[in-house]
């Protein structure tokens, strides 16, 4: 294994933004939209925003949210890449373990993800144990593999900046402006992303 691929989840692997989609189900779309936009543009600190967004949704039973999340549509070409490169791909998301587990199973990424962790009592979220700092994943990986990171939001900035190859993906929503300063590539089409990542894997593995 010569190359490790780290994927942001929300609007990179998924075709819809996860938390806004759930908020819509319970009529809190506008509040969620405002928080999400501010965060993506870097106008609201991520941790603060994430806690506020979780609060908006924490009265819904966890099982119900997990169900809704598991039905979110995904970019098929990216999921294809994930499944063809299971051994060296990870999802890196600040979303909560209890909300995304089902979706991870559905796209074949069981156990292949890093995320934030929630405290749950009686099927309700009562707190957050830990919000994942996305760039910490690079430090956890002990192998000397080349790291390729793919994301679209402000909270992917450090993960992309620290990666050997950074790809910002604008296929679902606009890429956060800050990422343009540090990306090696910007790609707006999921099939092109698949082709680029496959080329990176093939070339790096050939050099091994």
């Amino acid at each position, binding site marked *: 294994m010569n190359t490790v691929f780290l994927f942001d989840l929300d609007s990179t692997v998924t075709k819809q933004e996860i938390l806004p989609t759930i908020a819509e189900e319970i009529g809190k779309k506008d509040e969620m939209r405002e928080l999400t936009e501010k965060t993506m543009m870097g106008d609201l600190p991520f941790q603060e925003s994430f806690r506020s967004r979780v609060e908006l949704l924490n009265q819904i039973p966890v099982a119900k949210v997990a169900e809704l999340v598991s039905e979110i549509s995904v970019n098929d070409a990216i999921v294809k890449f994930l499944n063809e490169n299971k051994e060296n791909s990870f999802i890196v998301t600040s979303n909560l373990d209890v909300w995304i587990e089902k979706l991870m199973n559905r796209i074949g990424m069981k156990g292949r993800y890093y995320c934030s962790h929630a405290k749950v009592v009686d099927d309700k979220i009562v707190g957050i144990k830990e919000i994942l700092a996305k760039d910490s994943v690079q430090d956890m990986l002990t192998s000397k593999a080349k790291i390729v990171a793919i994301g679209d939001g402000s909270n992917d900035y450090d993960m992309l900046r620290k990666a050997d190859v950074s790809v910002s993906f604008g296929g679902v929503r606009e890429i956060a402006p800050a990422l343009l300063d540090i990306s090696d590539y*910007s790609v707006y089409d999921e099939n*092109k992303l698949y082709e*680029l990542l496959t080329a990176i894997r093939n070339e790096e593995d050939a050099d091994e």
Partner: protein
Amino acid sequence: MSNKTVIISCAGMGTRLGAGKPKALIDIDGKPLIIRTLEMLNDVDDIRVVVGYQAERVIEVVKNYRRDVVFVYNHGYQQNGTGASVSLAKKYSRKYILTIDGDILIHPDDMKEILLSETEFVGVCKPSTDDPVLVGIKDNKVTNFYQENGPYEWTGVTMLESRKLTPTDGHVLHLVEQVLPLGYKIIREREIDTPNDYKNAIIWVENGYKD
């Protein structure tokens, strides 16, 4: 899937023209220069555009025309040359790269010819710019650049086998020089470096690409 990646280098600032925007975006008879080039590349399935100066503006224009372009960043565009842009863009590309400087306009018929090529070549034209890089030719092949009284001028278009090239920070010619001698193709084109070049390019298009 073809074995060709087309690379258009649009990272530079174009200071001699002083348009206040990347040369790829200057208007040529109603359309940005890069759109005129992309229109000739509609059948190409792998295009990379290298961006640097005002990257966001270039990306916006290109992706509104087609979304399947891969944008490659040359963040060091203020210090390095077109060779650096091509060196970055050739990584993880297909077998052949067809490189086109973002400040030239190619005759549509010649672009069709270029796209049919299955081998490496250097694009040349009759000397026309104020400060041409002339090529030396022997046995129907380009053997060197900066040839005094060379019969043709280097154009900014070349097709090369990607893997053979050692990256450079300098001019794209430093990449081509590594693999000379190479065959050549005569291309009709307009390079836009100065306000006068710009005026001539517009007239050329208005006259239906007639010299």
